[in-house]
């Protein structure tokens, strides 16, 4: 116990903290500028000077550790004079342009001067001149206003890990700059904006349109971009989001955001937004009233159901929609129309992966806390870059590494480049060989627990790669040794797996191998999730074989319970999954498809096949916020309300349920749940839902997993797995693995087209954000320098990229960290998107897709 006196107050401390924190505890505010909670202390601004008895000099409270018996004074005349002096110094070179500065009203310097400052400055010479820099599309820098607190630098380096900005020069010629001196070339997390106390680093998005007092309301919500689910605050004025900000202490992101969350909010204002329902009349979409649209949909669905039966109808749910939206679509399909044909693009890897792992270990195996990652002592990352797919999760891995943990990355390191103990970069899609070698070796050296015999049996049957196999995979035996040694030594490891591992080669084998590894070293597993609510889609029962709460459809008990509760029949047979629905549409078994919040033509490989299938439908209903490629083919288009315009919940990849709240009260569309509900009513449903809350009430009524989980609980952050409800236990057990006793052949000649997952984009949503587009404006093909050299192209030049599906000219960008033999293209820009080039097959064991036709021809385009 430490006891000290601050301004005559006795303060008792459990653990050692700084005098500043001790004073805060005692309710005494010491002014600060360079201090920022969560950043390392700096002690540069000298505003927090205090007097300490027995110490001859004034001390900075932000750096001085409180000690027993200390007597501190914070408000003496000497201190006041010192503060005044520091503020006068800060103003010497600071322009007095407060009326013009966007920071006014939330400027820490302005507030400090108002409170403690000199009335007038005595500096008579000219101020330092440094023109505002507009080279960057997003961030404007005004170095005349900078007070060199270095909060931005410490944020960028120590928390974000982007190392994009630095102080150049020294003394009074110190300036905060990105490497180029102008444009940022960074991760654009914007976390430097959060910490800048003055108007030196500002967002251009709301330049001269933002003042804190313009904000009419602040709405706390959950980011709509990825499966992490950061908490953010929408600052609203006249129905517009003028800014989104994170807040320290709020949500699992605790004050941090990534580029998409911070700057990507303007997609809701895109001109492409649908504003009215449309019906296809003779090949042309014509605006109609909502009433007409509803009547049309209801009539057609009825007809099709009557003629072809309920199983001729299917629904596609959405990882971008809320739990409530997805639940309602599932409800419509199952309980109103009477089919289990419901699925989503979670099928592309996320849902099969989770299902497979749960089959081995039991429900909830992937429900692990993201903020806990930083406290682990080791991580294995394989199959995707967490820093771009799930950026805030990625930061946790960086933090893990920083605090001395081991990080092993298998594959191109991406954003973990400087945060990995080492990278193991096998030939494209030879991860299976590396993992097989590691698992085989590991279980030889470490006895298994004997808990999961079904898993251990399989591990015994695993084929161990020979020296030659490793050679073909491009990985040395020493590397395997090193991995095994390191993995074995980890005490609290995490394993992070991503789409690359699950969409190539043999997904079941790869999943089995990671499961075996996790089992052997006792790791917590994370599956990277590209959409904000893939987990919610699963948990809401948008799967052909699962009911809400992850209850298998073939258990009569679960069906009956719902039937009893809802008084509605639950169809008994498994439905069709996404790919089966496409196939069924193609061969005429499926007649109607209800697509909610998904652009199938854009999101799926095998575009031609999908197009033909959709063309063959009698009825294609597309409910979306944009007129997507898929919507253009629809018989009826229903404009939906977007994220930030509706209420509900998302479930993130750690299965945390969080609130989504409407900031905008008007929308050119309607909430998805509401549209679906109207249609359900037209089809004979008797239940009225008048809010998302009503929908949720039903969810917690019928899903045992969510039982009793109210919106209040969710708002209070209590909706963390395993909730108060019950996870399903006891159904896990036997599972199949493809090719347990064989190893894949590695093709060493081909150039493989892979999906680039840029930090700045998430597909078709981000493309409609002006801010994000200004950062990453056009399609580029990422190439390794030696591959580029091989065909004689340099950065910025064009190549022709072709598979049998498509051929396109695209600019090249050199990426030193990309594997040789792999080129990558993002799935962002219409017409030049990755999926357009490739096809897929489905692995029967997992139902996951495997990308095919990804070997490409490349040639330089002569200007």
């Amino acid at each position, binding site marked *: 116990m430490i006891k000290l006196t601050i301004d005559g107050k006795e303060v008792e401390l459990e653990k050692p903290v700084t005098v500043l924190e001790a004073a805060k505890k005692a309710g005494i505010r010491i002014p600060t500028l360079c201090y920022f909670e969560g950043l390392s*202390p*700096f*002690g*540069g*601004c*000298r*505003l927090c*000077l205090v007097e300490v008895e027995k110490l001859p*000099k*004034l001390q900075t409270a932000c*750096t001085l*550790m409180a000690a027993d018996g200390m007597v501190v004074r914070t408000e003496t005349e000497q201190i006041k*004079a*010192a503060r005044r*002096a*520091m503020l*006068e*110094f*800060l103003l*010497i*070179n600071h322009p007095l342009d407060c009326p013009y500065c966007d920071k006014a009203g939330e400027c820490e310097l302005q507030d400090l001067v108002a409170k403690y400052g000199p009335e007038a400055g*005595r*500096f008579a*010479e000219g101020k330092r001149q440094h023109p505002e820099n507009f080279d960057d599309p997003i961030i404007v820098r005004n170095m005349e206003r900078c*007070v*060199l607190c270095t909060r931005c630098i410490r944020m960028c380096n120590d928390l974000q890990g982007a190392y994009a900005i630095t*102080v150049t*020069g*020294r*003394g*009074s*010629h*110190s300036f905060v700059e990105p490497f180029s001196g102008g444009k940022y070339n960074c991760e654009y997390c914007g976390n430097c904006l959060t910490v800048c106390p003055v108007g030196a680093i500002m967002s251009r998005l709301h330049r001269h349109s933002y003042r804190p007092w313009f904000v009419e309301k602040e709405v706390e919500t959950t980011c709509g971009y990825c499966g992490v689910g950061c908490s953010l605050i929408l600052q609203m004025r006249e129905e517009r989001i003028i800014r989104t900000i994170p807040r320290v202490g709020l949500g699992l992101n605790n004050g941090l955001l990534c580029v998409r969350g911070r700057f990507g909010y303007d997609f809701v204002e895109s001109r492409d937004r649908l504003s009215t329902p449309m019906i296809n009349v003779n090949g042309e979409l014509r605006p109609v009233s909502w009433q007409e649209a509803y009547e049309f949909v209801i009539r057609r669905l009825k007809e099709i159901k009557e003629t072809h039966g309920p199983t001729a109808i299917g629904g596609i749910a959405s990882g971008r929609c809320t739990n409530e939206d997805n639940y309602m679509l599932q409800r419509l399909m199952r309980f109103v129309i009477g089919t289990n044909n419901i699925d989503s693009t979670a099928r592309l890897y996320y849902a099969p992966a989770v299902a497979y792992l749960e089959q081995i270990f039991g429900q909830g195996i992937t429900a692990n806390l993201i903020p806990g990652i930083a406290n682990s002592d080791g991580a294995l990352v394989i199959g995707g870059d967490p820093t771009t797919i799930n950026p805030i999760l990625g930061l946790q891995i960086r933090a893990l590494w920083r605090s001395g943990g081991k990080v092993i990355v298998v594959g191109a390191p991406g954003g973990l480049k400087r945060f990995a103990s080492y990278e193991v970069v096998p030939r494209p899609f030879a991860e299976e060989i590396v993992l097989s070698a590691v698992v085989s070796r590991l279980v030889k050296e470490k006895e298994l627990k004997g808990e999961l015999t079904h898993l251990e049996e399989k591990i015994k049957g695993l084929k161990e790669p020979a020296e030659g196999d490793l050679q073909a995979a491009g990985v040395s035996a020493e590397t395997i040794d090193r991995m095994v040694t390191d993995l074995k030594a980890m005490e609290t490891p995490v394993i992070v797996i991503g789409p690359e591992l699950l969409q190539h080669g043999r997904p079941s084998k790869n999943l089995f191998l990671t499961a075996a590894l996790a089992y052997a070293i006792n790791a917590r597993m994370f599956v990277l999730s590209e959409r904000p609510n893939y987990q919610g889609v699963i948990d809401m029962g948008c799967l052909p074989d699962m009911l809400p709460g992850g209850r298998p459809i073939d258990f009569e008990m679960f069906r009956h319970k719902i039937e009893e509760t809802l008084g509605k029949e639950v169809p008994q047979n498994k439905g069709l999954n996404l790919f089966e629905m496409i196939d069924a549409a193609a061969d005429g078994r499926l007649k109607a498809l209800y697509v909610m919040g998904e652009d199938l033509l854009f999101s799926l490989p095998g575009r031609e096949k999908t197009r033909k299938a959709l063309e063959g439908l009698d009825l294609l209903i597309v409910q979306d916020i944009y007129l997507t490629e898929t919507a253009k083919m629809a018989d009826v288009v229903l404009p939906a309300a977007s994220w930030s315009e509706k209420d509900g919940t998302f479930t993130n990849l750690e299965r945390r349920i969080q609130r989504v709240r409407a900031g905008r009260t008007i929308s050119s569309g309607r909430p998805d749940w509401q549209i679906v509900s109207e249609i359900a009513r037209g089809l004979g449903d008797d239940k009225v839902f008048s809010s998302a809350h009503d929908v949720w009430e039903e969810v917690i009524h019928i899903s045992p997993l969510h039982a009793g989980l109210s919106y209040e609980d969710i708002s209070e952050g209590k909706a963390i797995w395993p909730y108060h409800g019950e996870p399903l236990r006891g159904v896990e057990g036997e599972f199949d693995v493809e090719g347990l006793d064989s190893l894949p052949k590695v093709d060493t000649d081909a150039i493989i087209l892979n999906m680039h997952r840029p930090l700045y984009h998430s597909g078709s949503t981000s493309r409609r954000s002006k801010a994000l587009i200004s950062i990453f404006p056009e399609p580029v093909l990422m190439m390794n320098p030696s591959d580029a050299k091989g065909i004689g192209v340099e950065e910025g030049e064009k190549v022709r990229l072709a598979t049998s599906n498509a051929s396109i000219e695209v600019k090249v960008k050199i990426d030193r960290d990309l594997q040789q033999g792999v080129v990558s293209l993002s799935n962002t820009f219409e017409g030049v998107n990755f999926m357009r080039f490739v096809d897929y097959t489905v692995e029967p064991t997992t139902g996951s897709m495997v990308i095919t036709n990804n070997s490409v021809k490349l040639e330089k385009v002569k200007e």
Partner: protein
Amino acid sequence: MEKVLLKNIDNPDSARIEAYEKSGGYSGLKKAFEMEPKAIIEEVKRSGLRGRGGAGFPTGMKWDFASRDPKFPKYLLCNADEGEPGTFKDRPLLEKRPHLLIEGMIISAYALKAEYGYIYLRGEYPHAKVVLEEAIKEAYERGYLGDNILGKGVKFHLSVHQGAGAYICGEETALIESIEGKRGQPRIKPPFPVNVGAWGMPTVVNNVETLSNIPYIIEIGGEAYSQIGNPECPGPKLFSISCCVEKPGVYELPMGTPLKEIIYEHAGGIKGGRQLKAVIPGGISTPVLTPDKIDCPMDFVNLPKVGSMLGSGAIMVFDDTVCMVKVCWRAIKFFEHESCGKCTPCREGTGWMRSILERIEGGFGREGDIELLQDVAMSIAGKTFCPLGDGAANVVLSFIRSFTEEFDYHIKNKKCITQ
């Protein structure tokens, strides 16, 4: 007094290992290796040696702290940044007696169980770099450096780290940052380098001259050493004397030699027989003295009594033709240029003081400027992150205190009293 530090300095081969060994070099090392590391630290404590880099911290105590820290590896850093204007006393050691320094470092490293050492050499001494690197090579060849020094199982590796023009890197924590390849800004203390220094490990930073005293202490014993000069801070001391004296240069004299003796006897008195006006006794950061104070013995305990400091022992002598406002302005310009920019008062205040001094010096001074200058200096003094800012404030305050009339004259007459 027999020369210890500058022994043999006139021998053109003084930097070569043969010459050094011939004159008894590396015998201290051999003797030290017969002692327990702890005993060496005790001997250095007994000698009363205080750091020659400026702060005068007892060397034995510093070593004791570092050696008690259980973390390994430990680092020994030699501060050869010698950036304090007026100071050039380490230079002859670096250029002419590199082996004395190397021997001192090996003994220190052995005492501290430090396995790695760097000589942080200022970038402005390119010749010293060549000499030191050659000497280190020789020492490796003779088995004085390496994994198993003289077959005694002692490991010490030494190399030169060249600075690149930043006075602040002479401050020990900034020096550590700079060795780590960072911007040379001082670190928060505590933790002190003896516990958390280079790469987070226990680290001792000692000045060139400090380390060069070590072989002699081992040779004659701490007790005998403590009898040299002023027993409160004993030992031989290098004084660099410059500006308006007949014989500027580096002099090795016992600690406590009176300032007057140094100026008038050793340095041959004021140049051209002119009148003495002011002396800066310990490098530009130390307060200026007026002629009435020059009886003071030059050491760590007596100079503070007359309002100044020993600093690096760099004596700058100004005669009656020199403008004190101009000297003050130039000194502050130096501080402004060298301010690292980390803390507000130094970063902004040095420039402000410079601009006021500039206008006074240029004949544009205003009434109230002296008070303003003093006020700005007072706002800096005692509030900066590291002593650099304090140094700047002290210069201004001491110059104004000692030469108020001259400043006044400048403002009133728009020209210098010397003109």
